């Protein structure tokens, strides 16, 4: 019983880290661009697929263990760096002033298109890589043998992302400019800030984070069609529970939902799928703006 609970906690932490990587990008993009991007799940999936493809190629080379981890980052930057700016400029820039319903429909259409692109490129058979997990080996935690990848790397990357983003948004010039545009686009533009560049940069950063989430997930889960749907729905639950636009809040609710889900996996598997949504509904019934959200005040 204790052992199972311990295992559930370890699994929950690793899972929360993965979900956070996707949710934080979603909430950042919403906070600045005010668009709820359904296609965010596709960036996660494509990041995973590209990482698995690159990883499989790297595993065949002589430098396999050294390349296993850098390949994950490379995949994320490639996917986010190409898809992010292209989609922001070609599609989103045209709908910023449109109604939210239309924005949702457009990003949903993008999601469907990207879903088909994945099937065309990678087919429908499960794809998997384990290079990164093997490269880091295993560790003993009490009586449990666990992978160092899930125990250290996933939570480590998530924490580094959280603190990195907080530092960036609070301390750097570019970060403060992003917050200023979020707050009052007109006043920021009047003092010489190019709001379009802020949107482009923010969307690209959010896309890279989602793709990194997918790349990091690729050694722990099989990539199959539909993997993006699961992740975007779960990320929505995390983001809505935390309050839209809340970055630190997204970390805490990712933990809450990740741990809730993995405890369910071990002790009440039939509830695995619904636990995150039960948590979300319970929170939103009591606090409609989410645990950390304030009504129309703070957005990033």
């Amino acid at each position, binding site marked *: 019983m204790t052992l199972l609970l311990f295992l559930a906690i370890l699994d929950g932490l690793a899972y929360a880290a993965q979900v956070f990587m996707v949710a934080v990008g979603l909430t950042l993009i919403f906070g600045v661009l005010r668009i709820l991007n359904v296609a965010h799940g596709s960036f996660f999936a494509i990041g995973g697929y590209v990482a698995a493809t690159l990883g499989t190629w790297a595993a065949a080379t002589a430098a396999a263990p050294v390349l296993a981890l850098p390949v994950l980052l490379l995949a994320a930057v490639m996917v986010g760096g190409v898809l992010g700016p292209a989609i922001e400029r070609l599609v989103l820039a045209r709908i910023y002033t449109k109604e939210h319903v239309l924005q949702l429909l457009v990003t949903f259409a993008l999601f469907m298109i990207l879903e088909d692109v994945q099937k065309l490129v990678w087919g429908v058979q499960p794809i998997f890589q384990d290079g990164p997990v093997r490269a880091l080996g295993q560790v003993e935690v009490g009586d449990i043998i666990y992978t160092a990848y899930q125990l250290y790397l996933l939570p480590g990357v998530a924490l580094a992302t959280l603190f990195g983003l907080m530092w*960036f948004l609070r*301390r*750097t*010039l*570019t*970060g*403060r*400019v992003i*917050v*200023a545009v*979020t*707050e*009052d686009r007109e*006043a*920021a*533009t*009047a*003092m*010489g*800030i*190019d709001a379009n*560049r802020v949107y482009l940069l923010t969307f690209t950063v959010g896309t890279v984070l989602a793709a990194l989430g997918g790349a990091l997930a690729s050694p722990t889960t099989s990539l199959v069609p539909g993997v993006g749907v699961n992740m975007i729905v779960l990320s929505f639950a995390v983001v809505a529970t935390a309050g839209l636009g809340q970055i630190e809040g997204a970390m805490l609710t990712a933990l809450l939902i990740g741990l809730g889900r993995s405890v369910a996996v071990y002790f009440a598997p039939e509830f695995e799928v619904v636990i995150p949504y039960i948590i979300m509904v319970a929170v939103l019934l009591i606090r409609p703006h989410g645990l950390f959200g304030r009504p129309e005040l*703070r957005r*990033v």
Partner: protein
Amino acid sequence: MTAPLLSARGLKIAFGGVKAADGIDLDIAPGEFVAIIGPNGAGKTTFINMTTGYLRPHSGHIHFDGAEITGRPPRSIVRRGIARSFQIPQLFTEHTVIENVALKVAAHGRFWRPFRPLLDAGTAAAAMRLLEQFGLAGVATARATELNEGTRKLTDIAMAMALRPRLLLMDEPTSGVASAEKFGIMDTLVAALRAERVTAVFVEHDMEVVERYADRVAVWSQGKILASGPPAAVLSDPAVLREVIGVETGHAHA
């Protein structure tokens, strides 16, 4: 006579049937401190909006330092050296006072150095110097939401000054400020403007403030300039009294 720093000729704009500017001609000489007075709806703020690029006049021309700026966007006008403050201060509420000012200090350079701190040594020092000039050093790290109205007004003006303007347009710098504070605010800002040799135009409803601080006063009425000259002369003109001061008595003795 020296060439005017700002020169407006034949400015016209109307909203629906209301003529907010109906042939405005106005010159501002370098170093002047000019008050614009007039009843609500006379077109005073509209003049500021046209001069700073927020509104494009339907006809007429505005020249700044000899170059035409009519209808240029706000960003471009800011870069030429005209800044403004607002009747309702436009502070970024997620930022501290010093960050608000620092953002504008940094607006001269490039915004896109992702890992450069906002408050690096140079920017922080420049922002702090402005805060000291405006008596705001004590609230440098306060959030913009924690300030009283007078401090918010001064911060908004300090932010405009951070853009290093040659001409500053202020929309009611003392409105909403407690009566006891208004002269303190005006003393501070006039001293800062003189120290930086900035020419300024301010819209004002308070005749005590106008008499005490303005070099010249221009009286606005229904989109036209009714009178212009030294405050003592203009404010004793019967036509002006009837048109403006009559409506403004409440403010004058508030």
